[in-house]
């Protein structure tokens, strides 16, 4: 189903509103929801996709009488916009991020197609090292934060130097 506002992108937000017995259905895409937020009846002025979502979820959770028939938005890749439904239809991914976006659903599929779900072959030399460095930097940053909170500034400084060293290494790769 396409967005009823722009008619171009797939509608990922579906909700039904009943006010005084009058039923209104909405099927819109993310960008139109963002743009036309104020045009959607009942939406607060500081409209955001998250507030709409969480708001609807909360309402349903609380069993509020105003809104019913809320559906989960389709699982979709944030980078290329491919939905899981589209992926399962065409059997091809739109971009490398799809693997992360649909990660939870992939294991059963990959298990069926392959002998395992985890890569055990070649690793790219350059970006392989990069991945390792980046992970180490992330870990060091977290450690550093902890040291700072504990006012262990000397060891935090050591970690900072190590982070800088790794960042230089990545730049050289």
């Amino acid at each position, binding site marked *: 189903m396409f967005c009823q506002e722009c008619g171009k992108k797939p509608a990922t937000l579906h909700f039904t509103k009943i006010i005084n017995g009058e039923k209104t259905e909405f099927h819109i895409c993310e960008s139109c929801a963002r743009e036309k937020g104020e045009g959607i009846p009942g939406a607060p002025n500081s409209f955001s996709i998250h507030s709409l979502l969480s708001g609807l979820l909360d309402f349903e959770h609380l069993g509020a009488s105003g809104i019913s028939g809320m559906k989960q938005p389709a699982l979709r890749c944030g*980078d*290329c*916009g*491919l939905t899981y439904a589209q992926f399962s239809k*065409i*059997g*091809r*991914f*739109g*971009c*490398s991020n799809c*693997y*992360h976006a649909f990660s939870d659903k*992939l294991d059963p*599929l*990959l298990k069926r*197609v*392959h*002998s*395992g*779900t*985890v*890569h*055990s*072959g*070649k*690793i*790219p*030399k*350059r*970006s*392989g090292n990069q*991945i390792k460095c980046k992970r180490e930097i992330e870990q060091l940053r977290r450690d550093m934060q902890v040291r700072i909170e504990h006012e262990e500034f000397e060891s935090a400084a050591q970690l900072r130097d190590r982070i800088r060293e790794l960042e230089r290494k990545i730049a050289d790769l």
Partner: protein
Amino acid sequence: MSKHRFSQHALSEWMKDEGPESEIVISSRIRIARNLSHQPFPLLATDQQAKDVMDQLTEVSQSGKLASVGLFETIILSDLTELDKRVLVEKHLISPNLANESRCGAVILSSNESVSIMINEEDHLRIQCLYPGFQIQEAWSLASGIDDIFEAAADYAFDEKRGYLTTCPTNVGTGIRASVMMHLPALVLTNQINRILSAVTQVGLAVRGLYGEGSEALGNLFQVSNQITLGQSENEIIDNLFGVARQIIEHEKAARNRLLQESRLRIEDRVRRSYGILSHAMIMDSKESAQRLSDVRLGTDLGILTEVTPQMLNELLVMTQPGFLQQAFDEKMSPEQRDYRRAELIRKQLRGETDHGGA
């Protein structure tokens, strides 16, 4: 006549070398699928993104980084005629997908045509290496080396858990497809082929006929390849294929020996009959020519026929394909005309007349 070198000669240079087990294994192939990070896969790329990918990847060859591997020519698909594309497909240098469906598609071709690097096929980058005979490990080391050259120049879409990320989930992980093309006439004649091929599919390998529609194998040519790309290392995948192919080779050899011992006369008759028809027939469709050429190939391998070399047969395999026929005679043809021209070409080739320029 096409200006491109690849369409002048049916036989790629690399096919002229005789590889190990060449009487059964025609060729070994490795294909590696890779994608660039931060670019949508070709399926969802905009025209500009597709062009950026093409520019970035062709640059690797243009800037001479592949010089250590050999001489390369970069060919932009949109510069080719439909016929040129078809010839490339028939020589297995590009896929039908790249020829017909790609946007900003390109191929980087080595001068001996043993390496073809496809750009903007289903994945951004597909490196293919072909070796004569049974040389699957050799093909892998060459392909892997070329992979390293591209990796040094471009950021690959790689995930620690899933490996190399590909458009199709059937390629993810190592991204490699290893295959051997085998000529198995004796296993077909002795009705053993189905039993063996169904066993092969049990161990994570796939078999398909070459040039044939679906599973039908024209000319008793079968392509055996790995199905699994994730969860096994490249070496495991290749060793598995190597081991199974080695067993098929042994079975085919045993079947050939048995045929020779038990029904030599009938085999000899079959081979010579096909040779006679091929050297004299006026009309030859592609199906019949594939079957007759298979008989002649078997006869050559068994030493029944000495007039024909395997090289001539490999050449005919490609030359008798519709696209190459039209290229050789430089004219558009109806299927009937093609059958006539095909017969003419085969007669000349088998009688050792090298001129196939035609009308």
